[in-house]
């Protein structure tokens, strides 16, 4: 049983925000950096704490650590209600780990105007912890936006090529997605008759009186479209590679690794239990869109990339396809697989963006054709990169393996044809992943790289870069070898509710 004298979830959310505020109020740089360690470290420690104690914590309405705070809008059914269930716990932990790694990487990066950079990143971290700890779906949305705004600003100020265009495109696409999902959430609020954004209350009301089938279809469609844009479903994915290509590494790590999971998490936590008929109605279009668009089309587009960072961006779009497939499959197994995959992909894509930036700092280019032979000069970097690539492909021993495997097993029941196509996607990701690793690290050095290496002597990863990478890799392997650490809680939450409901409607 947890014995903290304070609410761990509330502190995990507001510690980074408080540090950001302190930095904004003009703290000197030395203290800012020291305090930033606290701002990123505290959420990680608290996340690990709740992970450890989750099994023994008291559960109310299926949530552990449940607390609620009034924000003056009780008569509208809005209040800050925090708690964790088996679905949100893994993602809360993910946010803690990736946030800490991204924070460490940002602190050592020595970016221009580091104070403001850290401040924005801390706001993002606070928002992320809030997204997954919120039981109230209004605050779930609210914290997502809180984390999203710093992304736009960081792309606009610290971004690479085309940062103005990328920032603008990112803003407009993601605002559209967010607005559509907001309307979907409002629709749930009004149509359910609960007049509350509290997920527990919504569940109770809808369990007593399910929504009409057409209403469910419409709301699910709206949510799937809105959340889909946020998760980069094909063909509304174009913001993702562009935005990640331009984003500074820590922002890309947090966005691609954690924030993007918001849409999937919303579908699993909100849409599936509340709108089972909507899922049945949309599951086939969704599955075909995901397998043909995200997995196959984007898979081939990824193979064609000549730019390392773009390639990582596209590969993350592709992997989101598997997540949609798991959701479309709808069974406990599929949804559980999606949650595992979300955690695994979050860790591995964050690691990938981190290493890509480290590669860039040594080669001064993202162009695959101009690289080669980095392994001799930076063996640790190349070992980590190869490990991250294996994780991305989904080799056993990494968390991704369990996620993809369970999704495929669940998908076979749903549609064998789609499963075969989806498995073909694994081959595609093996092709581009291994080819990129080979191009960058092995083989002879290209003349261009030799020239750059002569101008800027290449060194291996420093410890300040190694540490965040090792944290991410360790988490990936820990879950890879011991998936039960997450799946026990997950099963407990998933097995009674969605399975029963989805099964009943089928």
């Amino acid at each position, binding site marked *: 049983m947890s014995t903290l004298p304070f609410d761990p979830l509330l502190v995990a959310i507001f510690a980074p925000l408080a540090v950001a505020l302190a930095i904004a109020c003009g703290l000197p740089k030395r203290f800012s950096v020291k305090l930033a360690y606290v701002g990123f470290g505290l959420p990680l420690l608290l996340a690990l704490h709740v992970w450890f104690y989750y099994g023994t914590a008291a559960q109310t309405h299926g949530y552990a650590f449940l607390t609620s705070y009034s*924000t*003056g*809008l009780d*008569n*509208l059914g809005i209040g800050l209600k925090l708690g964790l269930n088996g679905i949100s716990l893994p993602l809360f932990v993910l946010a803690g780990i990736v946030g800490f790694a991204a924070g460490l990487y940002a602190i050592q990066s020595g970016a*221009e*105007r580091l104070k403001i950079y850290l401040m924005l990143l801390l706001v993002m971290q606070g928002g992320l912890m809030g997204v997954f700890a919120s039981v109230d779906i*209004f605050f779930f*949305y*609210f914290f997502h*936006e*809180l984390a999203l*705004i710093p992304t*736009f*600003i960081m792309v*606009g*100020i610290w971004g690479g090529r085309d*940062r*103005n265009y990328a*920032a*603008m495109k990112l*803003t*407009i696409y993601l*605002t*559209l997605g967010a*607005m*559509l999902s*907001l*309307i979907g959430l*409002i*629709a749930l*609020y*009004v149509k359910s008759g609960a007049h509350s954004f509290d997920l527990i209350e919504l569940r109770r009301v809808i369990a007593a009186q399910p929504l009409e089938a057409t209403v469910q279809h419409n709301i699910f469609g709206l949510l799937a479209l809105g959340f889909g844009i946020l998760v980069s479903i094909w063909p509304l994915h174009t913001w993702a590679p562009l935005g990640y290509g331009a984003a500074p590494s820590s922002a890309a790590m947090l966005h691609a690794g954690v924030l993007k999971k918001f849409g999937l998490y919303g579908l699993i936590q909100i849409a599936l239990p509340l709108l089972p008929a909507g899922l049945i109605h949309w599951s086939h279009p969704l599955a075909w869109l995901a397998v043909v668009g995200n997995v196959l089309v984007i898979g081939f587009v990824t193979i064609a990339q000549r730019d390392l960072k773009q390639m990582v961006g596209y590969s993350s779009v592709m992997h989101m396809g598997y997540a949609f497939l798991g959701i479309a499959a709808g069974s406990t197994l599929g949804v559980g697989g999606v949650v595992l995959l979300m955690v695994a992909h979050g860790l591995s894509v964050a690691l990938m963006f981190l290493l890509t930036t480290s590669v860039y700092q040594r080669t001064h280019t993202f162009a695959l054709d101009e690289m080669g032979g980095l392994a001799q000069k930076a063996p640790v970097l190349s070992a980590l990169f190869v490990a991250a690539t294996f994780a991305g492909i989904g080799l056993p021993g990494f968390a991704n393996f369990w996620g993809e495997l369970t999704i495929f097993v669940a998908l076979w029941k749903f549609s064998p044809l789609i499963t075969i196509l989806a498995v073909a996607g694994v081959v595609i990701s093996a092709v581009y992943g291994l080819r990129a690793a080979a191009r960058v690290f092995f083989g002879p050095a290209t003349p261009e790289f030799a020239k750059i290496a002569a101008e800027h002597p290449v060194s291996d990863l420093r410890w300040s870069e190694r540490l965040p990478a090792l944290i991410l890799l360790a988490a990936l392997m820990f879950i890879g070898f011991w998936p039960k650490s997450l799946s026990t809680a997950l099963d407990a939450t998933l097995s009674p509710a969605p399975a029963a409901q989805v099964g009943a409607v089928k």
Partner: protein
Amino acid sequence: MDISVLQTLASRNLWGAITPEILLGGLALVLLVIELLFPKEHGRIVPVATLVGLVTILGGVLFNAPSAYLNQETFNGLLLHTHGGQIMRIFFLLAAIMVCVIARVSLAKQSLPRVEFYHIVLVVTAAMMLLAQSNHLVLFFVALETVTIGLYILVSYYRTSLTLEAGLKYLVMGALSSSLMLFGIVLLYGVAGNPALPAHTAQSMHYGQLAAFLAANPHNFLASIGIVLVLAGVAFKIGAFPFQIWVPDVYQGAPTPVTAFLAVSSKAVGFTALLALAGTVFASYAWLVAPVLTFFAATTLLFGNFAALTQHNVKRLIGLSGVSHAGFLLLGVAAVSRAPMAVGAIYFYLFAYLLASFAVFGVMAHVAGANDADQELDHYAGLAKDRPFLALVLALGLGSLAGIPPLVGFMGKLFIFIAAFQAGLYGLLAIAVIGVVVSIYYYFGWIKAAFFETWGKSVDAPTHPERTPVDFVTGFALSALALAVVVLGFYQGPLGAWLSAR
């Protein structure tokens, strides 16, 4: 005539009910006296006296917050003191305080007599407060004209060629809309008092009586023309499409504090009138009012947002963005009949709009040079570097106007959307979503001009006018606004409960 009748009538004139308005009028007169008594120093004394007086009156209104006259008719039914009226009183007082704060900055750049400016602002504010509580078409018309005529003078206050041109345009458009509204009122008066019709009334301009008459005659031809004319007149005041043509020119030409006054207070006046009229008096003509409001809301949302996209002058930009905000508010008004929470949502939106707008206008007043009409986006280059405080306030204000969480503007939009969804206005909601996405583009462009463009590369020769330093009072006011924009986004606290109470 029996003298006792007059006595009864006079006994219903409860002057205590309008103490704040009387005090405002008195303060306005005191300012003129100050000018006479201190001919040399009045330039410094007058703004301070105005602000102190306004803050005192605001304090008094807040202190007596549940007014003793609540839900009571005074002055023989000319006034009805509702909860909404109390909310709007506080709104207009807050707005007047901010207008005066901004005016201190802007007027310092001109060589002009200052007393009249503050005098008129006070008188107009008093009229707005009366209008928010009016319960009779005569008082409504007279109060509205006091507001409008005061604003004609304020718009052309600088007496330069540009402000006079703006003033003339505003005058012609304002007088036209007043005449339309007046003719509508006359028709309603004539029809509702007609002895040949059922439920005709002697008090045919009293809101309650008029509503009762309209409920008894739900398809009268002349009455429906009257209603459309009155709505058109109000639509002019709030800048709803197709009556928005004056907005960009007048907003550009008017002095910055007056632009703020127009954008916030004058628009709020229109919405209080619309809530009182469309929401309650004309309720039985929903077959007519609902489509008209839907048309206004849809076209205003689309026009405001798309027209703002191409603007480079920030005053025109904020004017057209104000048109789009009118569209969001109209969406709320359209929802009132079927979703009662829309009223609270509209009040919340108005307060959110007040806070964010004055934050932006406050920054504009500091960035503007002596030529007040010439305020381009380019003038904001490097603001984040030179004046981080102003840039931060600007970003928060614009972010809130754009409706970005966690700022208060988002909450306003959320409440309006919930109300609109409850009322089943799905088509309008879709247009509103498009509007939000488009609006992000131009607000973002402004923030970009202040932040992104020059970070990294330095500007050699400043192409922008001299930026005014921030003094204590303005600094305090702007910080308070910025803080409120953030805090109210996180925690609505008693404000949310107060605004959504009946």
